[in-house]
């Protein structure tokens, strides 16, 4: 092993540990790792910028973030939660069943961090009024947000990375991960509900007066922005569905990143006095974090470290397709529960790309489905498994609703395990039917 490989591996491991320990801001850690590789001349700046940073991923995330900011600024999340709660007659049992499905659905198309920031707060507020324990509901919401996120290209950052890096479209994810995610979501919410139904404890001391005053329409801060946000969101999803067809049949370069970017830019132009606030609220820190990671993992790829790992895994599992796919799924799940799933998905993207095409290894596509399902769903396991978990967990703790790691894991692991088992069965069926 030459010095360059050792340096690239060392920088990657230090960055990974730095992100995991959270002592220093993760964007700073990823940035420092990227700069270290440039200083050690593992990569040139030109290579980093033109080859290893996936600008398509950054563009797609920017577009989606902008649309989600517009929706949140207009009061969409509060409106949605209140409207659903009202339709459910503010019944905590119904809320427990339906709210997680709503977060799952929203997270299939939007950034799950924002979804959970609002839903954790809204669930807490509703729980306060309706006098039920918000913890099992919020944990179920997070689980479903992560499971729902696995169903589309834009649902979770690992999917954006794997999809754009390896050439899989929005429709590919919907067709291959979608059905598994839907079944896993229904099963997970069922398990979560069964597990915690007795902990909800209904109270008779509900503040009916406060409930009667609640009007979902009051949550909408700006009707024009609300409508514009919903239209932009609908257009982005529509473009994502048709972009492949448009590109190949009409020869118009409507790429996946352009799908949300076009409506996002239109909305910023038409946003009037709100535009400045919208632009300010886009999460640039996450985009910078991704840029740093692309460079750090690019170092591993360039020096051949990833190829060596890919060869090792391919040799270990030669001709054992189901064993390899199951290992990819469960290994991705466990790793994602421990550390951030973004650097993991990025590295695994290169690993499975380098494995694909070798004799005795399954097709790239089915390896993508296994890694993405594992990395997205596995994040549920601990309060730090995904950013959405961190935000939901700490937002409740800040409100003096103490969860603790033990209770989180006790509540999150059963639905997560069920979802992963269903995913594994789904992958096995795909392999048997040769449908991937």
């Amino acid at each position, binding site marked *: 092993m030459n010095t360059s490989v050792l340096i690239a591996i060392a920088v990657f491991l230090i960055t990974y540990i730095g992100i995991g320990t959270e002592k220093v801001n993760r964007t700073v850690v990823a940035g420092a790792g990227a700069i270290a590789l440039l200083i050690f001349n593992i990569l040139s700046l030109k290579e980093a910028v033109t080859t290893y940073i996936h600008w398509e991923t950054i563009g797609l995330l920017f577009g989606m973030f902008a649309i989600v900011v517009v929706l949140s600024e207009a009061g969409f999340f509060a409106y949605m939660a209140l409207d659903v709660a009202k339709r459910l007659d503010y019944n905590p049992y119904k809320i427990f069943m339906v709210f997680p499905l709503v977060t799952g659905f929203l997270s299939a198309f939007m950034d799950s961090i*924002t979804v959970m*920031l609002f839903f954790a707060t809204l669930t807490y507020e509703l729980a306060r009024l309706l006098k039920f324990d918000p913890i099992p509901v919020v944990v179920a919401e997070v689980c479903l947000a992560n499971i729902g996120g696995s169903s589309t290209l834009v649902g979770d950052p690992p999917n954006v990375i794997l999809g754009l890096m390896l050439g899989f479209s929005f429709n590919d994810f919907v067709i291959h991960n979608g059905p598994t995610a839907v079944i896993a979501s229904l099963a997970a919410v069922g398990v979560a509900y069964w597990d915690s139904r007795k902990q909800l404890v209904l109270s008779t001391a509900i503040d009916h007066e406060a409930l009667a005053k609640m009007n979902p329409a009051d949550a909408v801060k700006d009707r024009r922005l609300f409508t514009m946000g919903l239209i932009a969101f609908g257009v982005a999803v529509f473009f994502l569905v048709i972009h492949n067809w448009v590109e190949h049949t009409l020869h118009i370069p409507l790429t996946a990143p352009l799908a949300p970017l076009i409506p996002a830019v239109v909305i910023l132009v038409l946003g009037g006095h709100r535009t400045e606030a919208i632009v300010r609220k886009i*999460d640039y820190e996450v985009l910078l974090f991704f840029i740093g990671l692309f460079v750090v993992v690019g170092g591993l790829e360039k020096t051949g470290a990833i190829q060596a790992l890919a060869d090792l895994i391919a040799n270990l599992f030669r001709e054992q397709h189901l064993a390899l796919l199951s290992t990819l799924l469960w290994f991705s799940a466990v790793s994602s529960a421990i550390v951030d799933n973004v650097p993991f998905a990025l590295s695994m993207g290169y690993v499975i790309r380098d494995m694909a095409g070798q004799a005795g290894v399954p097709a790239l596509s089915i390896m993508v489905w296994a890694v993405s399902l594992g990395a997205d769903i596995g994040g549920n396991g601990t309060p730090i498994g995904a950013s959405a978990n961190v935000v939901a967990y700490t937002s409740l703790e800040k409100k003096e609703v103490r969860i603790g790691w033990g209770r989180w894991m006790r509540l999150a692991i059963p639905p997560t395990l069920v979802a992963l088992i269903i995913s594994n069965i789904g992958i096995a069926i795909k392999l048997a039917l040769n449908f991937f």
Partner: protein
Amino acid sequence: MKVLFCTDGSQMSRLALEAGARLLKGRRVEGVVLHVLPEVDKRLEHYERLHEEELKEIEKLFGGKEETLKVVAAAQQLLSKAGVPTRRKVRRGNPAQEILKEIRQGRYDLVVVGSHGKRGLNRLLLGSVSLEVSRKASTSVLVVKAPLSP
């Protein structure tokens, strides 16, 4: 006599406040109720900053009173009924360290704490807040383990 009453809203801290108030009955007490909030994760802080206005709107919509205020107000009310007037203080960070800092800065004659708070498991893992406070405080500490007999 300057007394620091520590509360985290738990049943045990309530018992501690009741016991402290009973033992101090008839004395001239200058009381302070201290509540230590957990440290906020940097990532949550970041997202809350991005969506600060919308989150405030939600709080307004629900007409919510912050839980922190409720915890401290309940403790103050309990002590006031027992004839102990108090001021309130809220700190953020590690509970034991923040209580110790408050003791150093406030020059208290007595500190009243419950033997364990909301996080019972912490006692096994890290040593409880009361244990650390009683070991390191430069002033007398009343650690309440059970209600006083009538």
